[in-house]
């Protein structure tokens, strides 16, 4: 049996009413060994920050959720997942699965955030390996002030690579 899917619709501008409280931005507590703060900004095609977006991160250890602020900033505290996603095309490097929701996006965007201190694993990762250098750079976070920075560009020269789920 295959049931037809329920179509997606935009999260709209007012999602904070309903999505603000249940799931938080701390997948791991600040003091947890290995906890890392991942922050970033979401930009639109004009290079302007997206002040009404919603970022969710997903990994075996748990999910994080953070709305963007007036300057498009988000921050999530989590740990680096194990190198556990194995499929027919090879061992994937540790990464977070990331969903982006916003007014103007009718269907969620899916991307991945890889870790900058995993050169060897990243080099062997089949998904990163299928991308150009410039594309790959959009998926690997950079070290920033004791944490990691992962900016998301919805359009433009540095448009983030997004996946078909």
């Amino acid at each position, binding site marked *: *049996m295959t049931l037809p899917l329920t179509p997606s619709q*935009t999260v709209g501008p007012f999602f904070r009413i309903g999505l603000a409280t249940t799931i938080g931005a701390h997948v791991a507590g600040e003091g947890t060994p290995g906890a890392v703060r991942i922050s970033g900004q979401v930009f639109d095609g004009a290079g302007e920050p997206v002040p009404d977006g919603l970022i969710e991160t997903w990994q075996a250890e748990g999910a994080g959720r953070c709305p963007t602020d007036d300057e498009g900033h988000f921050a999530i505290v989590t740990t680096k997942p194990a190198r556990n996603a194995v499929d027919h095309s090879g061992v994937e490097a540790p990464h977070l699965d990331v969903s982006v929701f916003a007014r103007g996006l009718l269907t969620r965007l899916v991307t991945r955030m890889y870790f900058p201190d995993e050169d060897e694993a990243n080099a062997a990762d089949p998904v990163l390996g299928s991308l150009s250098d410039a594309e790959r750079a959009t998926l690997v976070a950079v070290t920033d002030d004791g944490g990691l920075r992962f900016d998301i560009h919805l359009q433009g020269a540095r448009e983030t690579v997004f996946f078909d789920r």
Partner: protein
Amino acid sequence: MAPSSRSVHPPNDSPAYGSSLLRAPKQPLRVQPGRLGELTAPLLAGETIGTLDHDLTRQHDGEPLGERITISGRVLDEDGNPLAGALIEVWQANASGRYAHLSDQHPAPLDPNFSGAGRCLTDAEGGYRFITIKPGAYPWRNHPNAWRPAHVHFSVFSAAFTQRLITQMYFPGDPLFAQDPVLMSVPDEESRQRLVARWSLELTEPEWSLGYAWDIVVAGRQATPLDDDAPE
């Protein structure tokens, strides 16, 4: 060629919806390799849902104005399996078409007895139930004299990343559908109809409230391998 199961979702490149112009990515979506393992996250460890969180009419001292309604249904995956323990979050405008959100400037009255948010976990059969009031339609600036049909925002958060869904539920017979670029962004009429709840005599409580039935179907737990018409 049979359409990909993904094609029920609206393309982000939907220019009739003005907000998409600077936000929809321009590059084609990439295909992720199929996964052998399930991609799951532990769900809501330590989270608690209040016993009245599903009842949007009982969050204040008084009752909100508007038509009392029940919305109820099941959440299934495309293989017909119920999603038990999925987090359903809803938010909506009040009966006048105004959200209790600072950025909503529609000059319609706020209702001190209505915040417009609710949540629940699905039961073992995937069932959910919300008690609320029917939201009003409201104007927006997408095009001249544009109005959103009455709708309730639904978020479905289950244990699998591939199943994550945020959508909107509409009410049957609304004359505003055809001019709404958000609903009309869904490519085919059959799929659009799946966003429209059904009035249900069974869910209608005599002398009390109207009932609407609405089931939600999300992707299967496994990531779908390459579809025939997946973008390259």
